[in-house]
């Protein structure tokens, strides 16, 4: 259970997000909006990378908005950033093990599950993550977060750079883990149609403010698109 109220956040004195509230519980929660709307800023704030200047973030009732990023990760909140998402000088295997430190089940099981999703990774294990192709790097970043077996997964445009096949498979996997493993997924995306297909709730940001939020069944795609034309 993730609950955010009155959130305000930004960079070095510049406020970007203003008065954002949301609650997500064991479901796919889509965050949409134009470039610069504040999607990444919201996810960075939830992950503890930047500190909110006002408002509360609660996770299962506990306030976490004052915790440093590593403590937030230790609570079972996995984060896939949009940029610089792998450790370039570590190998793929090492990148994945970093996520693996936190999970509960045996590492081999989790790896097997990951290779089932992204078979390509298995062939690249000893390669430095910095030399991977764009899509392969994205798979490693997602893989690292999945290895953590998080109870909340923050995904910032995870399908950017993935082939159509992997995009479909990833959406399918995301829907599956939220349904079967009761994982809360906060998903920032540009791919509106596919995202609305798996999300239960949608939140459209526009210039740092909430343009629209609600259950996906009750929101039309036109309403969503309006949030992009300001």
């Amino acid at each position, binding site marked *: 259970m993730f609950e955010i109220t009155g959130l305000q956040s930004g960079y070095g004195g510049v406020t970007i997000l203003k008065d954002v509230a949301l609650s997500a519980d064991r479901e796919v929660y889509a965050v949409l909006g134009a*470039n610069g709307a504040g999607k990444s800023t919201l996810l960075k704030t939830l992950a503890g990378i930047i500190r909110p200047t006002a408002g509360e973030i609660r996770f299962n009732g506990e306030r976490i908005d004052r915790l440093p990023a590593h403590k937030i990760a230790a609570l079972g909140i996995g984060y896939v950033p949009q940029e610089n998402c792998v450790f370039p000088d570590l190998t793929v295997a090492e990148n994945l093990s970093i996520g693996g430190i936190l999970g509960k089940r045996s590492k081999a099981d989790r790896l097997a599950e990951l290779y089932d999703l992204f078979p390509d990774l298995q062939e690249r294990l000893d390669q430095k993550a910095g030399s991977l192709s764009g899509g392969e790097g994205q798979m490693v970043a997602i893989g690292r977060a999945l290895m953590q077996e998080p109870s909340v997964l923050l995904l910032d445009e995870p399908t*950017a750079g993935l*082939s159509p096949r992997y995009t479909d498979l990833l959406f399918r996997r995301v829907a599956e883990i939220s349904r079967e493993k009761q994982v809360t997924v906060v998903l920032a995306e540009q791919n509106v149609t596919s995202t609305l297909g798996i999300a239960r709730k949608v939140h459209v940001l526009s210039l740092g403010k909430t343009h629209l939020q609600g259950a996906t069944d009750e929101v039309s795609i036109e309403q969503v698109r309006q949030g992009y034309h300001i």
Partner: protein
Amino acid sequence: MTVEAKLSIAGLEKSFVGRKVVSVDRLEIGRHGIEGLIGPNGAGKTTLMGLITRKLKADAGTLIYRPGGTEIDLRQMSMDQVARAGLVKTNQVIQDFETLSIRDSLRLALAPAEREQFWTVFTKRRKRDAVEAEIDEILSHFPFENPNGDARSAGEKKLLDIIRCLLLKPKVLLMDEPTAGLPDDLTRAVMTLVQKKVAEEDLKVFIIEHDLDLIWDYCAHVNFLADGRLLCSGTPQEVKDHPVVVEKYMGVVDV
């Protein structure tokens, strides 16, 4: 009459630690206005473009570039020479200049080499209205909130990268997943501008995308690359229905 290709590639090969990543027997670019390159992740698409722009050195093969009447052997050139000769690539992975504002970043692209020399710092500065007008013109196509500010979000940086390359007035523009991270309407705005430039100027475009709608809608010709090899090419319709493409690349229907 067939149009002469701007870029002819033959026997091009590149290996990383013993693994052959690119192995393209023949590829001609520039017969069609906008041409597409698709293929699975890790197929070697970005590497192929890196070989063309001389960011990477090929192990074997020839690369002939024909900007005007002349033929240029690209293997003799460095990446900056290639770019100045009109062969430019946008970046797949987000790249930016941390301390340059949007406008400065575009001025950089437009600055001629003779103004960027050690001693020009002391020469008198002229106001360059033509440059500013050109920047204003291209920015008017896109919704930058404040063109004098910084591009900070991923999408803003990506868009800026494309605009920078367009300002260089390339003859061949290689676009590596230009629209990943851009919303649909902006994707269309970018492609409409590119289409306009292709129609009006001497510009050919070669574009990598995983956004297949974009490929089918805008490309006259599509190439499919897998495991470093060109497995098929043709019109969008031909490629779309090609069994190899469907098997190796296309999405799975039931989501």
